[in-house]
Structure formats: structure tokens, C-alpha cells
């Protein structure tokens, strides 16, 4: 039996710290891995994942809103990049 959640479209926005900036959280985890002897992992970076749900279908207006929010609220373009937006796992290109 499918859960109700399956029927609700899920929009995912993924945000990462900019590659050129120090990521103190990732660095701390990388150092921990090294202490555990997991030296095969040469780097760790930690980002954020936003899961958005809507009641109805995901139309262009909603995707446009998501793109704006991703750029202006979920991320700060000085320090972060929006790396991907997906709807039910499918990457979407959203132009404003």
C-alpha cells in the first residue's frame, strides 16, 4: 500500500558552501575521519537540503517561486551556491 506521502510532490533544494570558501563543519568531520583511520576520504563538505511540499501540482509558478526563494532566502550567494533543484527526484532547470 502506498503511503499518502507518496502522493505529495516533493521539491528538494540543495545548497552547498562555495568551493573556494573554508567549510569549517566539513573540515571538522574530515579531521575526525582521519583520526578513525578512514584516510581514503580526502575531503568532506557539508551543505543543506531543503524539502518543500505543496498540496497541488508543481507548476511553473511554483517552480519560479522556489527558484527565487532558493536564490534569495535558502542560500546566500556570497557564501553558498544552489547546486540542484529536483521535483520527486527529477532535476529541474528553472529560469526566472
Amino acid at each position: 500500500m502506498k503511503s499518502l506521502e507518496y502522493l505529495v510532490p516533493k521539491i528538494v533544494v540543495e545548497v552547498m558552501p562555495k568551493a573556494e570558501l573554508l567549510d569549517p563543519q566539513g573540515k571538522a568531520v574530515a579531521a575526525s575521519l582521519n583520526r578513525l583511520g578512514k584516510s581514503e576520504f580526502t575531503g568532506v563538505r557539508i551543505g543543506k537540503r531543503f524539502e518543500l511540499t505543496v498540496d497541488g501540482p508543481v507548476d511553473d509558478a511554483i517552480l519560479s517561486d522556489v527558484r527565487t526563494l532558493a536564490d534569495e532566502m535558502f542560500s546566500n550567494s556570497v557564501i553558498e551556491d544552489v547546486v540542484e533543484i529536483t521535483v520527486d527526484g527529477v532535476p529541474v532547470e528553472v529560469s526566472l
Partner: protein
Amino acid sequence: MRIGVITFPGSLDDRDAQRAVRMAGATPVALWHGDHDLQGVDAIVLPGGFSYGDYLRAGAIASHAPIMAEVIDAANKGVPVLGICNGFQMLAEARLVPGAHTRNSHQQFIRRDQKMRVENVDTAWTNEFAAGTEIIIPMKNADGRYVATDETIARVEGEGQVVFRYLDVNPNGSMNDIAGVSNERGNVVGLMPHPEHAVEAGFGPDTELAMASGTDGLAIFTSAIRALAAV
């Protein structure tokens, strides 16, 4: 002279900022984040704290608060605006000052009495200092690392928008030891250390002269009064 101090959910130092405004000789006005009303104040302070738990990013959610529409409008018209710590983070998130903040490079919360140099004494919040004055102001933060693109750093350095610079110790890994910056006009200033905690002898940072005797923060508030009197 009426200086507003905005309280957000999670503000900690709003009352301290009001007290500093009073000790500087102005009338503090308590403002509320959820209002669209600056009550006609002459200047605005965004106080320190952990608004909205600093969820999302430090100061990010607060930068979208209802009253911030009026703050941004006032700032663009030249009204003096000071952002302290979390308030500085809000100013950066609202793009009223250049740059952004990330977690301290050492990943730890830090509290120390911090020495800084006042690099620009032409802003609305630093005109009572002599050029190059060294001051000691308490700081306490976890997300205080000032960062910006190389182009932005070059611009703020070149345009004199670096207002305060850390001396002796860079407490959080901030680029170019930057502790505070202003907008291009100089009416909006943000800094990580807390000048409102250094306004009364006996309750300030330690100095070489006596314990808790530091009052270096007071001139930041009297500067705004002077800037307003000059208008």
C-alpha cells in the same frame, strides 16, 4: 534625539543597547520586528542575539522580518543604522552592507575582550573617534567570520568601508581581520563586537587601568547623536 532598538525573537542585547543609547544622551525607543512602524526614530540599532535560533543562517530569517522593509528604506535614505553582532549579520543578509558571515574558522563560540582599531572615523557611528584609535570591546559569537569575494574585499578596503579591524588576535578567521564594515554612504555600520557592553565604568571590559573600567563603546552611540545633530 530618539534612537530605536528593534527586538526580534531571540534578541538578547536589546535592553543593553537601549541602556547604551540612554547613557550616550539619546532617548531609546523599543521597536518590534513584527511591526511596519519605526515610530519616527532618528536612528536604528539592530541588537545582538540569536534571532530565530540562527536557523538557516545567522540573521537570515530576521533579515526578512516585516520591519526590515522600513529599515532598508530608512537606510537607503541616510538614516544611521547600527548592526551589532546578530544585527551585523542581519545587515549583511539584507545586503545593506557588503559581505557575509560563516561559522568561526575554529568552530567554537568565543567570548573575549577584543582590541580593534577604528579604521574609518567618517561614518555616522564613528565620528567621535580620532583616526586610528585603538579600542577594547567585548565580543561573543559563533558565526562571526566575515567573508566576501576577493573583489568585494578589495572594494571595501579601497573605499574605506572597513570601519573596525581586529588587532593582536583574529578571533574568528575573518578575512583581512575585518571586524566591522559600512555601506558606501557611511550611515549603515555593522560590527561583531558589542559596544553596548562597554559604556559604563564598572560594567565594561578590563583595561590596563582597572577591572571592568572600559567604556570605549560609548563613542559609537554618541557619534550617531553627533551625526544627527549635524544634519
